[in-house]
């Protein structure tokens, strides 16, 4: 059984102007032992989706419909205090965007760790510290960092410390939201290497990596899921998706990546025209049709469904009609 299974999830923001359908009728399964890359432009609902997957929904965000099963437990009907006590940090951990700023400027890392762990279990401080030291060594992080204050650490070091602290209780699923977007290229590599170590050492079973940079996903993801306007448009193993994308949006997204490679130089610089739609009132039919280079008449009125093609890949586009 998959580690996390979400079915028919609808997560809307209730605002004065109406409902922002940030995640709309979405199914997703995260298998055990994989790193799943979740990619898409800003505002496509990636961050909302990962927050919903761990039931971190606070008004104005509401889970309107759908069930979420994590490691055999239905978490979509749990209340916040149960989640805080038994699920978050223990079964699933989320490292949100710019989490490196979550560290208290007036507290050293050690103090921060104690503060976090005390919420989950009652153990003496000395034990928390020795546990953290061991974990830092395991992940090749300098133990001295524990006695330092955030301003003494580099951005990459802060990010790695935050990830190490969020996985102290060995959550089976780790969700990282844009962990490298604010970092230099050199620090980015260190953070990615640490994520690989986290899975190799068995600290976490699966990782969900949210980003808009597909070149980063090539390095660490086994599987990539592409989101557009609150929906999944395509999902496939990394190399299949990069070498043979099916959905026109995936194709444009890959073509917008700029890396110093002969293949990329040959095709030149391209960007996707237009802006992602306003989710208060998404376009009828296929949500990508106003920007799609291969738009057909049917796209403007009929919404495509996710269909299976070539093994386990799925795609939602009228170019790939379901067989029935």
């Amino acid at each position, binding site marked *: 059984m998959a580690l996390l299974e979400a079915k028919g999830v609808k997560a809307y923001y209730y605002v004065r102007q109406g409902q922002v359908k940030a995640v709309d009728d979405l199914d997703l399964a995260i298998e055990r032992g994989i790193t799943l890359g979740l990619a898409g432009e800003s505002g496509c609902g990636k961050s909302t989706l990962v927050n919903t997957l761990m039931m971190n929904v606070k008004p104005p965000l509401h889970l309107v419909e759908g069930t979420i099963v994590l490691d055999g437990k239905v978490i979509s009907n749990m209340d916040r205090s149960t989640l805080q006590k038994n699920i978050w940090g223990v079964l699933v951990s989320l490292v949100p965007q710019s989490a490196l700023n979550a560290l208290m400027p007036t507290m050293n890392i050690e103090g921060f760790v104690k503060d976090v762990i005390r919420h989950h279990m009652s153990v003496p401080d000395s034990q928390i510290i020795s546990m953290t030291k061991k974990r830092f060594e395991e992940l090749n992080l300098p133990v001295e960092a524990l006695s330092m204050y955030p301003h003494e650490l580099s951005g990459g070091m802060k990010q790695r410390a935050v990830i190490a602290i969020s996985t102290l209780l060995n959550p089976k699923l780790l969700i990282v939201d844009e962990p490298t977007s604010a970092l230099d290229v050199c620090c980015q590599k260190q953070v990615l290497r640490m994520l690989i170590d986290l899975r190799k050492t068995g600290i976490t079973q699966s990782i969900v990596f949210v980003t808009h940079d597909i070149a980063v996903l090539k390095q660490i993801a086994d599987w990539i899921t592409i989101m557009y306007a609150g929906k999944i448009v395509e999902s496939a193993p990394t190399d299949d998706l990069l070498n043979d994308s099916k959905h026109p949006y995936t194709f444009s997204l890959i073509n917008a990546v700029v890396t110093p490679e002969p293949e990329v130089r040959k095709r030149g610089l*391209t960007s996707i025209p237009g802006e992602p739609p306003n989710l208060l009132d998404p376009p009828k039919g296929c949500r990508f049709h106003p920007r799609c280079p291969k738009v057909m008449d049917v796209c403007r009125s009929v919404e495509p469904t996710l269909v299976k093609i070539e093994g386990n890949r799925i795609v939602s586009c009228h170019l790939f009609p379901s067989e029935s």
Partner: protein
Amino acid sequence: MLLEVKDLRKAFHVGLIRRKEIVAVDKVSFNVEPKKFISLVGESGSGKTTTAKMILRLVQPTSGSVMFEGKDVWRFKKINELRRYWREVHAIFQDPYASYNPLHKIDRILYQAFNLMEHSDTDRNKMVREALREVGLRPEDVLGKYPHELSGGQRQRIMMARCYMLRPKLIVADEPISMIDASTRAGVLKLFSKLREEHNTSVIFITHDLGLAYYVSDEILIMYKGSIVEKGPPDEMMNNPQDSYTKRLREDIPLLYGKWDGF
């Protein structure tokens, strides 16, 4: 020669009792010719932004000089010389939101550009609309809106539209695309090339991403700990880097078709 940077140095002094000197930029020299695209590449803290600020006259150098068309920009004698410099050297910063007053509508930042222009009798409305269309924005989508109502890519394009109106000779762009989505990055980069082709604009492009610099530059300067450690044409930097820091920077770029060692 459009811009000549010579032996630029900036040292900051910190501490009240125990004074400490931090050298942010040291012995930086380079030239920018008309219609050239120069990239300044380095990690955070390497002094790229301080260099840019000294060129823009925002930070006074400790020693060294910045010459624009033969005149030292820190020794302008008349206000007109300074105004001309502001018109001909345009800055674009990393966070486009920070360049706007959140309480003013987008129109204002565009119309403000006319204050710097000599010919004020032109049809302003027409010029603004033309510039917006030029950068791929529909005037009716952005005019009359506040900065927070626009996306990061749109905000950065409005800065570019200002560039179109002013037609500067030099654009100093400090990480102009690191905060915008990968899907719109190529579009903004193309705008720089277009300006260069149509109006002979030179660009100093500051970035931490050697991969991006490779695409757009005529020359790449690698900065490390305040100094330039290597410079040359992009192909040479990518295929045959000499300095150990350049080599590391090159290896750290995530690739779309190749994998890193050990990943």
